[in-house]
């Protein structure tokens, strides 16, 4: 093309970077799509319930499972573990908690209490609760967990403050749990926490360390008392039943003696009566016979026998001197 006009030297604009509109648009669209996908679903765990807000306004609560929502912050979801039993620890803490309200923050202050008889006691306890109204829990009170801690402390002190140190430490534990539970339930309702308090359990309840020894001494003295009583009862039980047995023995012995005496008497009488029957028939001769029989028996067995004439007046010269009974003295 020879007769072609010379190329018009066009005015060159200062070189500007070309805006890759297409690229930007593509990136934006993709980012939007990803964002849309990312923010339009959520899952609620089995033990939980989801609370959905649209433009900040409460919309509904949803059950566990996969759910969809309007993206980009239009719908906001808060998931609360409503079916889980949550607990608060006062005066102590066990590591490995998931609920941030659970552990005691100032354990020494929390457990230190004044009892109704103006003694000091250290009380540790646990509160078991559940979120039973998620709407109230989220929207009516700020920091419901901390609020529950505060009211639990106040309620427990009110209950402890009406009890003696002996009730607190030994005999009234159950009573305290029941009273504190009732108090906390009432306060939780009044404060609109959306929380149901299920249980209050006392853990370690002790007198302060400084007086612990004297409390132990009371226990020891109580044991001493039981011990002294047991020993005394032992002595009693060792002696008295034995004495009862011996008394019975003596009485039985006497009864035996009675039988013996009566039976013997009756036997003797029977024998006498039999002899008497015969005697009556021939009294003279029976007497003589019995007399002579006896004399025969007696004299044959007796020692020296001296027979003197009835005219002899003096007996002494005949007796051998050696046999004088006076000499033996």
């Amino acid at each position, binding site marked *: 093309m020879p007769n072609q006009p010379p190329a018009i030297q066009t005015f060159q604009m200062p070189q*500007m970077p070309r*805006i890759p509109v297409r690229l930007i648009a593509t990136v934006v669209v993709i980012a939007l799509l990803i964002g849309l996908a990312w923010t339009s679903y959520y899952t609620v765990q089995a033990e939980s319930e989801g609370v959905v807000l649209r433009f*900040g*306004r*409460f919309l509904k609560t949803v059950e566990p499972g996969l759910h969809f929502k309007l993206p980009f912050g239009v719908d906001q979801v808060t998931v609360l573990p409503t079916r889980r039993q949550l607990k608060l620890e006062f005066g102590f803490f066990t590591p490995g908690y998931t609920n941030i309200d659970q552990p005691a923050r100032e354990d020494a*202050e*929390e457990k*230190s209490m004044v009892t*109704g*008889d*103006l*003694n000091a006691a250290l009380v540790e306890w646990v509160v078991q609760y559940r979120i039973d109204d998620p709407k109230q829990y*989220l929207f009516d009170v*700020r920091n419901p967990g*901390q609020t529950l801690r*505060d009211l639990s*402390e106040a309620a427990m002190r009110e209950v402890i403050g009406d*009890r*003696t140190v*002996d*009730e607190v430490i030994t*005999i009234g534990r159950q*009573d305290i749990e029941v009273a504190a539970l009732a108090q906390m339930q009432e306060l939780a309702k009044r*404060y609109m926490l959306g929380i149901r308090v299920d249980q209050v359990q006392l853990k370690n309840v002790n007198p*302060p360390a400084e007086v612990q020894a004297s409390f132990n001494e009371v226990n*020891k*003295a109580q044991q*001493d*008392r039981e011990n002294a*009583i047991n020993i*005394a*009862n032992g*002595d009693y039980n060792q*002696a*008295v039943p034995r004495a009862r047995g011996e008394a019975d023995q*003596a009485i039985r012995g*006497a009864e035996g*003696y*009675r039988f013996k*005496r009566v039976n013997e*008497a009756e036997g003797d*009488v029977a024998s*006498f009566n039999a*002899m*008497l029957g015969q*005697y009556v028939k021939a009294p003279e001769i029976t*007497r003589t016979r019995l*007399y002579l029989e*006896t*004399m025969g*028996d007696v*004299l044959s*067995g*007796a*020692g*020296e026998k*001296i*027979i003197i004439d*009835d005219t002899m007046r003096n*007996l002494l010269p005949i007796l051998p001197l050696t046999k004088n009974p006076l000499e033996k003295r």
Partner: protein
Amino acid sequence: MTKRGCFTLLLLALAIVALRILFGCFFAVYQTEQVIITQFGKPVGEPITDPGLHFKLPIIQEVNRIDKRFLEWGGQPVAIPTRDKTYIHVDTFARWRISDAKTFFVRLRDERSAQSRLEDILGSETRNAVAKNDLIEIIRTDKDRKPLRDENLKNVQTGLGTIGVLPPIQYGRQKIEDEIKAKAAGKLAEFGIDLLDVRLKRVNYNPDVLDRIYQRMISERRQIASRFRSEGEGEAARIAGRKERDLNEIQSTAYRQVQQIRGEADGKATEIYAQAYTQNAQAAEFYNFLKSMETYRKVLTRDTTLVFSTDSDLFGLLKRANAKPQTLPPAR
């Protein structure tokens, strides 16, 4: 392309500004808050308490968000002497709510100044209430409550009557809390604040008084311990006494019964004998004779020396063969 480029840029900028303005017209009111719209710093209209999407004039109107929930207030623990001059640490907490957002906004503007106002008012009311009551009024609540008594301590008497006894009260903690609340509520209402509740959370002895308290507790316990020991000794002595008594009773009763039985037996035997021997004169005589014979047998033993006269019944025949042996004289 160049013109189009400029145009595009301009369009983009305009779009952003338009969007900005458009978005500036809408705002969300969260479920937990209320909103006061201000125009150049001045509140406009009533506070918006209804949650959801709302409309306002862009740029010139501003959104001020104010909490609608019950809020916490936790006071610093303060050392206060009670009326009976015991130093205690009192830790209070309160629940409150912004009930009149407009007044609140005008007078306090934000929560931080509200908290410090609460601290001033509640702190001083608490101090006043504690200082004019005895310690026991702050500790106890229910004036009618009767404490459970430990069975073991039932008989323990103490000089002061403090063990197992709740000192009497006139008002109690609840009344004091209510009083603090009533006084503070009036003052706080001016700030658009509604006070739900004030509670004494912790009431503890000041460390300085603790030693005295501990000493008292220790002496109380010692008293109980010595009571137990003395009870044990007393009970043991009582049991020992009972043992002595029971032994004596048992043994003497047995002795009495034994003597009674033996006596009866002897009596009975005597009666039987007597009846037999006295049935008639002959029986009595025969008994006499028999018994005499029996006695001779017993009495005359191997070492007895017997002296007989030839005049005797037995030996009469020795002297004279014809002597008629006499029959024995009849027994008396």
